[in-house]
């Protein structure tokens, strides 16, 4: 095995390990810089991934101090194992948006257009964004005939940026993060499926109070400002 300095040093309290949903990548990276600036000598280690992967890893012993999930379901898995330090708190919301390749080749303008003859890419119902997709489709009483049901937002986005799919349903924040590689189209029905992001410290984390300070930062004005700049809604 290699050197284990990375996780070994977490014992000295100068490292804060944050497990966060992949959609939080850019915002948490920015917040980590502020946090490190405010806490001399503290090193914030961010680990991004699918919320279910992350919670699985924490349950199996990963050294996380904070867990920020993209849905309540995976946070519930953490609490079901009684691994939370403080009870989870919601810190952001996210809503769906239609993503189309630049130039919108299929001419999509509304949710109803997605029922037409085009290559639609959505998340599978088994994953959070897919569940949300189902909700809005039911609310709009349309039947979607997707070309592909992906396992993550990233995969949906990938199909759109590459032009393989004509339209997809992803989160607002994803469209913003993707820059000009996709175009976003808002639709009113998105309000029917608001996704809530909870955050919690992890029991027996090595970082002590730092973990709670991170949660406070995210919930505080600075955190909320960064999040809303990335497209997240308030909790």
């Amino acid at each position: 095995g290699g050197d284990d300095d990375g996780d070994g040093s977490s014992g000295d309290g100068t490292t804060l390990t944050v497990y966060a949903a992949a959609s939080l990548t850019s915002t948490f990276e920015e917040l980590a810089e502020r946090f490190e600036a405010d806490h001399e000598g503290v090193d914030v280690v961010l680990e991004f991934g699918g919320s279910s992967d992350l919670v699985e890893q924490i349950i199996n012993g990963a050294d996380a101090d904070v867990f920020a999930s993209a849905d309540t379901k995976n946070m519930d898995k953490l609490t079901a194992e009684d691994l939370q330090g403080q009870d989870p708190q919601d810190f952001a919301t996210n809503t769906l948006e239609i993503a189309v390749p630049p130039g919108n080749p299929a001419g999509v303008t509304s949710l109803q257009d997605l029922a037409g003859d085009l290559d639609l890419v959505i998340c599978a119902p088994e994953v959070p964004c897919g569940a949300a997709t189902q909700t809005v489709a039911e609310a709009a009483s349309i039947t979607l005939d997707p070309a592909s049901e992906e396992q993550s937002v990233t995969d949906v986005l990938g199909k759109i940026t590459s032009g393989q799919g004509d339209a997809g349903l992803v989160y607002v924040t994803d469209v913003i993060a993707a820059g000009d590689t996709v175009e976003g189209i808002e639709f009113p029905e998105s309000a029917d499926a608001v996704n809530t992001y909870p955050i919690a410290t992890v029991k027996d984390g090595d970082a002590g109070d730092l973990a709670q300070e991170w949660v406070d930062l995210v919930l505080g004005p600075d955190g909320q400002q960064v999040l809303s700049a990335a497209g997240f809604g308030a909790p």
Partner: protein
Amino acid sequence: MPAVVGTLFVVVPLAALVAQVEWSDFWGLITSESSLSALALSLRTSAVSALVCVLLGVPMALVLARTRFPGQAVLRSLVLLPMVLPPVVGGLALLYTFGKRGLIGETFEVVGEEVAFSTLAVVMAQVFVSMPFLVVSLEGALRVAGERYEVVAASLGARPTTVLLRVTLPLAVPGLISGAVLAFARSLGEFGATITFAGSREGVTRTLPLEIYLQRFDDPDAAIALSLVLVVVAVLVIGLTRQRSGAL
């Protein structure tokens, strides 16, 4: 001793996997409609992929093993690359090539339209990642078999095609079979390139590994049960082929 350690290192995790299964639900889980359709799709596409690998890979292995030309070493490395490339990147490469906006997909629109989100795309992804296995395995067998018998055959007046069909290939059959089995097995387990290039739609592109991956979020028991199905299928294929051919 190290053999035991090595074996345990592989076998114990598999046992741990088995230990996780809720046997009471097992049958229900693996016979659900989506599971069966994923299994069927996986078997079908893997079989086709293995076949395509044989059709395309045999000539490639022959060229690599039996001819010499400048740049051959480079070509060999290139052909083997999909083995080391993370499958997701392989899927990206396919997307850039055969996707709607890809090199070929854009030029020949029909190709792009036809391939996207189709079972064909699944097969292409599987072939891309599996081909090197067949080529390596067969090229090795061809090198080992050597050219001695081919030279004998040729000097007995056999035309190259006769030599190929009656001497080269029969002698390389063990390598060919084990290569085909490896290719089939690799296709069966293929995930990254498929999800990236072909997407995931039940009955069309959602193979068993994709189904497993998907179920993982929702129903880990189902995921594990399906993994076991995959394991059993693979063991059967490998075992049966070995038995029948003594190869691999």
